[in-house]
């Protein structure tokens, strides 16, 4: 269970200037690769308005989705089906007073529409997993604001059993400082620490429980960065929501360690909107443009 060994003793109250910066927890090669690719993509936009980065990735995603449709679907069959649907609709318009013809035409429209959906299923299934990964990566970067030097934040340790929070303490690396006594909330089995970020960087404050240290990465930066709000026990959802954050061991008394990064809104001219709304609008618009250029049947 021990994760990190610290050289400085902690008295359990206010700790400042812990002189040792812990190492980043290891991640799986696949997730490292994915995250690295996104980091690389966003590197040119690090210091710019995040809206620009979001426009760029939304454009790429919109175009990529069209390319997947273009090459992963049976475009010829889809075109043929659409033509047939159009023909049967025309049939309805031409012979509105012949009940038998109209009924048969409607039935065929329904049948071909269903068939059309079946043909679109294949590219949609191909897109599903990458899209979830993309959304998770974007959520990490655009839903929250990194801390700035001088900002205060709350680090929360949530425990599994009542009473275990009483002995918890905190160790802070240089660059972070505790600015209030720890706040115990027994009914929530939680201890909160108010911490001020003094300098830029990535830090690993450690929650100490029964001699064991459990770290949580904290990012202090004015640039665009991936932010992991919560470190918790392993679950299938973590794979998407926090792919770069190591899970807590199952046998620990800790349920989760959280950092309350502030929510980020994307400023687009006079509008202030959630990142995913902005993403969907731009991705959809660029997808439509790509559809016309690539002559994708959709």
């Amino acid at each position, binding site marked *: 269970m021990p994760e990190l060994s610290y050289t400085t003793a902690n008295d359990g109250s206010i700790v400042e200037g812990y002189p040792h910066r812990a190492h980043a927890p290891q991640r799986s090669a696949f997730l490292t690769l994915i995250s690295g690719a996104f980091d690389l993509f966003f590197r040119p936009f690090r210091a710019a308005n995040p809206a620009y980065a979001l426009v760029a990735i939304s454009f790429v995603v919109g175009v990529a989705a069209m390319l997947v449709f273009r090459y992963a679907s049976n475009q010829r069959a889809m075109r043929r089906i659409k033509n047939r649907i159009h023909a049967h609709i025309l049939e309805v318009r031409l012979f509105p007073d012949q009940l038998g013809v109209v009924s048969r035409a409607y039935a065929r429209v329904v049948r071909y529409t269903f068939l059309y959906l079946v043909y679109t299923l294949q590219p949609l299934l191909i897109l599903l997993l990458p899209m979830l990964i993309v959304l998770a990566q974007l959520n990490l970067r655009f839903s929250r604001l990194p801390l700035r030097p001088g900002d205060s934040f*709350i680090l929360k340790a949530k425990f599994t059993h009542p009473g275990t929070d009483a002995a918890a303490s905190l160790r802070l690396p240089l660059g972070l400082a505790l600015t*209030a*006594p720890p706040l*115990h909330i027994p009914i929530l089995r939680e201890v909160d620490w108010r911490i001020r970020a003094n300098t830029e960087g990535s830090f690993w404050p450690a929650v100490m429980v029964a001699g064991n240290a459990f770290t949580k990465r904290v990012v202090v930066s004015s640039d665009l960065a991936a932010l992991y709000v919560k470190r918790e026990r392993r679950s299938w959802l973590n794979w998407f929501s926090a792919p770069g954050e190591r899970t807590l061991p199952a046998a620990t008394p800790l349920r989760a360690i959280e950092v309350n990064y502030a929510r980020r809104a994307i400023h687009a001219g006079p509008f202030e909107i959630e990142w995913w709304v902005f993403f969907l609008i731009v991705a959809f618009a660029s997808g439509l443009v790509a559809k016309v250029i690539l002559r994708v049947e959709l």
Partner: protein
Amino acid sequence: MSLTAPCVALDGCSQRHAENRSVLVLGIDGMDPDLLRQYMQKGHMPNFQRLATSGSFRELRTSIPPQSPVAWSNVITGMNPGGHGLFDFIHRDPRTMLPYFSMARVQGPSHSLRLSDWVIPLAGGKAINLRHGAAFWQILDAHGVPSTVFHMPANFPPVDCSSRTLAGMGTPDMAGTYGTFSFYTSDPAEQAGDVAGGHIYTVEVENNRVAATLFGPPDTFREGAPQVPISFTVWLDPSKPVARIDLQDHQVILQEGEWSHWLQLRFSLLPGLESATGICKIYLKQARPSFKLYISPINIDPSQPALPLSTPSSYVRDLWRRAGFFYTQGIAEDTQARMDGVLSDGEFLEQSRMVMDDQFRLFDLELARFRSGLLFGYFSSVDQNSHMFWRTFDKNSPSYSPELAANYGDTLEGFYQQMDHMLGKVLARLNDNTTLIICSDHGFGPFERSVDLDGWLLENGYIALRPNAGEQPWNLFEDVDWANTRAYGLGLQALYLNLMGRERYGTVLPGAMAEALKTEICNKLLAMRDSETGLAPISRVDKAEDVYTGPYVSDAPDLIVGYNQPYRAGWDTVLGEFSSVVLKPNRRPWSGDHCIDHTLVPGVLLSNKRIVARAPALTDIAPTILAEFGIARPEDMVGRSVFKA
């Protein structure tokens, strides 16, 4: 009045000179010439001393009456109240006799559709600035001189112009008031209910948890416009004086005696369709044994203003982007929370310093990019802290104590020194083409005893009570027999005749009868004596027609009462309450004042240029600024440039 008053003829040389000119004005509310001299003599105001020595320092004649909205309107328009129409903090509508704040009014939509308890507006509401007359920066605008005007009082909503202006005194909070705080307490000794400056809510601490509700702006989409509620939770540590406040998306940990940063709150008006945002600060006064939490008035959010705060409208958002959140409420120092006992002297002082820091921070931003044209900065701290901390050095004040003097005796001087520090930064940026003007709207004096003007009018037979009037204190709007009343006081210094044809229940005939009555009341007021001090509580009474000129003289109070030092209008009399005790000691923390005889509280005027005017007045400031840019003063301005003989 025309905004395109002709420029004076300029030759080529002076034309260029005018184009390069810049004027920097610091408006320091309430700076008193006597105190300034005293602090300069002590050597504590080196920058003011330097300016006074190398330039000019004169006393500045204030407005009649010397109240900030009136005085700054004199500055803005170059006219007296007869020209701009502001006569007191409080005006009354003679048709209803009800009082209202004189500076601005927020008006709901003229037409609306009612569906069950929902009200759908069919027309937009609006905020109306009740000051008349063109502002000097509007005239500068018309002549192509760029201006930036910060926190100018009596400029909410800001008047139309292309200059950058930010509204000041008169700007309401989200509740539509001039500042309504919320205070939550578990102390059984505290009573829930409304107090003068806010609401007190009693709460219970259960399992170290407090559940409470914060009430925001009125929901005008609902019948009766109930205030929009936001539930919040406070988690208290079982043993240490620290708590976490969960309020919407915010989680804030505060130790006892700590203030939060600004919190942005969203109030849902029409769920999913319409909402408004405001900002507030939270102060954990006490965690244990009793829980006490103060939440500031909810200020209009500068990032998404619900009401117009600036010109152009984007300017306030630009300031927010550059400086973060800041106080937008007109008078941001919560003096009322101190008066209601919710904040202590130390707590009020801390809050007051936060307001000053905001004002300095914003001004610094503009000062740094100021190159030419006009920059005007307004600072409220000296005024508000003169009101609250005068008792710390006035040994005659009923609330003076040696302990208070030891703890806070130099507080006001500290604020003067802060202004000196600001002046130092300004002086460092001055060049030969810049005219610096420092002015205050009035000075200050002690407020040790109060005069219940309506009580005096009752005692002297000018007000008659209804036969069924209840116990005192009485109220103008419920207890007065208007058919037998000849005069009444409302506001800080206004006295009105109950004039036939003007007042709803008028009894006094206009003309000779009214004139005779005014003279009679004047003489009696001046003859009043305080048996405890032997002093005359009133040293001057002005008739409106003697001191005002302009189109709005007919709206003026008939008499303007000039209280002698150390007197002022009683607290209750301002809004129409009165009793049979006319003269009382003032034991409130609000112990310094200026709403008195205008000759006793002149302001200050300093400049880096030589002031030649013999008796400069507030109405001279606008013509002086215009003259510095070579613009002739419009005819309706009564003042003249102080730099010209």
